C-alpha cells in the first residue's frame, strides 16, 4: 500500500494522507511542507520569497524514495507510507512535499514521519531554487548525502 511519486501538479493533500487507511491502523501522521513566504534569518531580518522551483534527478529520486520507505518499514512499527514531492514552479503556500505514515499506534507514525522527512532532505536528489525580490539561488543542502558519497 506504499506509494512514492513526483508531480508537477498541485498535490491534493487528502489524496495522500487518506489514500490508504489500513484496517490494523489507528493513526496517520502527515507532514505537509510548503513554500513559505516570510523566513526569519538568524540576524533577525526577514527574507521574502516570491516562489520556488524544484528540480529532481527523477529516476534516482524515485529509487531513493523507495529505499527510504523500505528502511522506515523495517525500523518502525508502521503499515503504509505515501510520499509525493512536487517539481517545477511552486507558488507560496503550495505543498513541496507530503509524507503520510499510517500505523497501528500514533507514536511510531510520528517517529517514522519525522525520520522520513529528515532522510529525504539528506538523500533524495531534489534541489530547490528560491526566487526572492532581486535575485534567485539554488539552495545547497548542508550534509553529504551519505558518509560514503562524495563531498569534494
Amino acid at each position, binding site marked *: 500500500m506504499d506509494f512514492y511519486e513526483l508531480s508537477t501538479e498541485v498535490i491534493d493533500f487528502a489524496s495522500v494522507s487518506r489514500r490508504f487507511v489500513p484496517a490494523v491502523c489507528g493513526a496517520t501522521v502527515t507532514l505537509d*511542507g510548503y513554500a513559505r513566504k516570510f523566513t526569519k534569518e538568524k540576524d533577525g531580518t526577514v527574507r521574502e520569497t516570491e516562489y520556488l522551483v*524544484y*528540480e*529532481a*534527478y527523477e*529516476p*534516482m*529520486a524515485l*529509487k531513493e524514495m523507495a529505499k527510504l520507505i523500505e528502511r522506515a518499514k523495517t525500523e518502525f512499527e508502521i503499515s503504509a507510507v505515501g510520499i509525493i*514531492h512536487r517539481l517545477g514552479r511552486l507558488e507560496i503556500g503550495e505543498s*513541496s*512535499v507530503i509524507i503520510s505514515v499510517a500505523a497501528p499506534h500514533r507514536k511510531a507514525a510520528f517517529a517514522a514521519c519525522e525520520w522520513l*522527512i529528515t532522510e*529525504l*532532505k*539528506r*538523500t*533524495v*536528489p*531534489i*534541489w*530547490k*531554487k528560491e526566487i526572492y525580490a532581486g535575485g534567485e539561488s*539554488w*539552495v*545547497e*543542502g*548542508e*550534509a*553529504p*548525502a*551519505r558518509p*560514503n*558519497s*562524495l*563531498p*569534494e
Partner: protein
Amino acid sequence: MGCTVLFFGATADATEKRQIDLDLEAGSTVGQVLENVRHSHSGLNEHKLLVALNEEYVSLDTPVQNGDTLAVFTAVSGG
C-alpha cells in the same frame, strides 16, 4: 570507452549544460571523472559536489564502465 555526465540545479547553471559525453581511459574511477569534469568546467569549483553512478551513491574509487551514467550535483535540498 565513454560515459555520460548529468548536471542538475546549481551544477547545470554552473556548466550551462544538462549533459555531456566524455571519453575515458579504461579503468577510470568516479573520482577521476569528477576531477576531469571540474577541470573542464571551472564554474563547478565553487560548489561542494556529490556524484551518483547509474543512479546510486557510490564511493569515489568505484570504477566507471563503458556506457555508465554519472550525475554531478550539489548537496540535495528537497523537502
